[in-house]
């Protein structure tokens, strides 16, 4: 069995499972945020109208809540949703609530690994599509809507069709100017935005072994853009160390069997990769950054669960250090602890001296909701994950997806720029 199959077999009390088996699996951890949370509450209210009063949830110690999409509160409605979330946390005794303005908080997927809220070998369900991110810890992590999350909160389990696994072997060493973001954009472009539909996407190979954890999260994060049910990487010593630095909670790491079956195996020699940019309006619509070097931009954005981890800020700061930006640049670290570390390590200074504005962690601009949305015809190069029409603002704005290095280089020139091409 693959790692995904082994985790689902354990969680459904079976010795083994095979792709296409339908199982009801026990869930170890559940996440909801200020969009899926009010959705869950609406579902509970509907149940109560039908006479099914919800007094308690299955296990509040396995549930955690993030405020990330509409913080800082955009308007009265968003503020009320946040109050609803807070009341929900109180009512059901949920211990982990990452509240905007009260210590550590940030984008839910970033918190999942920064705080080791999910452990290797676990089944983790989140009310957000990029829940796949956390799979780089060697867990089964998948996104769902609020009805399914409500079901899990009541029952502690949920149905899954066991997915087939596509294995991407990444071999070699990434060039210094190439990041995990370039790799995943290339993979999505080569295989399509629906290649992972109903499937697991697993990454392995010597390039993965060498890759820091934060870069691995970029890969699993964007398996969502390939349609995957989950993205996953078998835990190695780096994974174990990363988790143990953050928690004392015990866990059992799982890896796949030697004879595990994969529906497809693709191998990439990553030494040959170049900085990649996904043009509007699909993450699969790629060119090299150099092919787009005549595209002027209005904004360079570093933010989101995909591209505002500490390492992302560090790599962008290395490119931009001592230079001035030519277009507006907005940097929103993905979580409060990352922001603080960036401050202590001098990265915030580097960005501000270059001309950038720093904002609080929020999903706002990535989903076109607030905190810096795009006007009609504006062009943004962004470390985020989606560039669908209207994703980051006006339906006729344009988003180009790129690595933090490309975004930083582009901020300096005012055009899409390969980081090799600035001095």
């Amino acid at each position, binding site marked *: 069995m693959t790692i995904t199959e082994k985790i689902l077999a354990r969680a459904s009390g079976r010795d083994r499972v095979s792709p296409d088996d*339908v199982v*009801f699996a026990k869930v170890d951890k559940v996440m909801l945020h*200020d*969009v*899926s949370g*009010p*959705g869950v509450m*609406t*579902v509970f209210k509907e*149940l109560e109208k039908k006479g099914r009063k919800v007094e308690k949830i299955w296990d509040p110690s396995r549930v955690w809540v993030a405020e990330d*999409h*509409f913080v800082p509160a*955009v*308007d009265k*409605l*968003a503020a009320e*949703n946040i109050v609803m979330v807070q009341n929900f946390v109180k009512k059901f005794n949920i211990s982990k609530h990452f509240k905007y303005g009260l210590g550590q908080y940030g984008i839910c997927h970033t918190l999942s690994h920064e705080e080791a809220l999910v452990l290797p070998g676990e089944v983790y369900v989140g*009310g*957000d*599509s990029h*829940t796949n991110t956390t799979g780089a810890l060697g867990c089964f992590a998948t*996104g*769902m*809507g*609020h*009805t*399914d999350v*409500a*079901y899990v909160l*009541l029952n502690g389990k949920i*149905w899954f*069709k066991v997915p087939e696994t596509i294995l991407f072997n990444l071999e070699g060493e990434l060039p210094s100017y190439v990041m995990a973001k370039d790799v995943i954009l290339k993979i999505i472009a080569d295989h399509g*935005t*629906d290649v992972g*539909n*109903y499937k697991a996407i697993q990454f392995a190979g010597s390039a993965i072994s060498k890759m820091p954890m934060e870069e691995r999260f970029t890969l699993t994060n964007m398996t969502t853009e390939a*349609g995957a*049910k989950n993205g996953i990487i078998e835990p190695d010593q780096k994974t174990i160390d990363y988790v143990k630095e953050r928690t004392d909670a015990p866990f059992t790491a799982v890896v796949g069997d030697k004879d595990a079956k994969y529906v497809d195996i693709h191998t990439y020699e990553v030494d040959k990769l170049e900085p990649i940019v996904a043009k509007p309006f*699909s993450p699969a619509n790629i060119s090299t950054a150099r092919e787009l070097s005549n595209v002027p931009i209005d904004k360079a954005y570093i933010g989101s669960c995909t591209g505002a981890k500490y390492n992302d800020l560090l790599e962008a700061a290395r490119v931009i250090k001592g230079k001035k930006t030519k277009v507006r640049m907005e940097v929103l670290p993905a979580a409060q602890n990352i922001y603080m570390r960036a401050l202590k390590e001098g990265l915030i200074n580097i960005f501000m001296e270059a001309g950038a504005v720093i904002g609080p962690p929020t999903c706002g601009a990535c*989903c*076109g*909701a*607030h905190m810096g*949305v795009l006007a009609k015809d504006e062009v943004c190069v962004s470390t985020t994950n*989606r560039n*669908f*029409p*209207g*994703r980051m603002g006006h*339906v006729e704005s344009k988003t180009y997806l790129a690595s933090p290095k490309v975004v930083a280089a582009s901020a300096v020139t005012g055009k899409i720029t390969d980081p090799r091409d600035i001095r």
Partner: protein
Amino acid sequence: MKGTVHKYAQNNIDTDVIIPGPYLKIMDPDELAKHAMEGLDKEFVKKLKQGDFMVSGENFGCGSSREHAPIALRHAGITAVLALSFARIFYRNSVDGAHLLPIEIEKDAYDNISDKDQLEIDIQKGEVKNITKNKTYKMKPFPELIRKIIDAGGILNYTP
């Protein structure tokens, strides 16, 4: 189920065009419905009657896990989406939340169905009848569990 087709002959209709991000703070389904498909077709809501169907290509509903997407479509009037394939979360949300029927159809049916055609969907028989063109297509059968959840009226009413 009988209704009129609204055909969007393209692949990858994503949840950001079905219901754009700024509206995710809205929980009132009728309010969400006013903005259904706003990212692609501002006239969409005006064209619909309750009980209408959408027809589209591959990977329908890709992107975010927002259940607001099937909710907005349903409350705008759509009771079934017929597509060549669906993104997994949209499919799951549609069935588990009992919002609408995600029906997979074959390429020949997809090519044959035109905008404004009248269809009759019979999930017992697994057939889609095109009343306008006097043709009948097979739908891809629902997997067993999906069928049971549909019959129960959503995952919250389903007992394994």
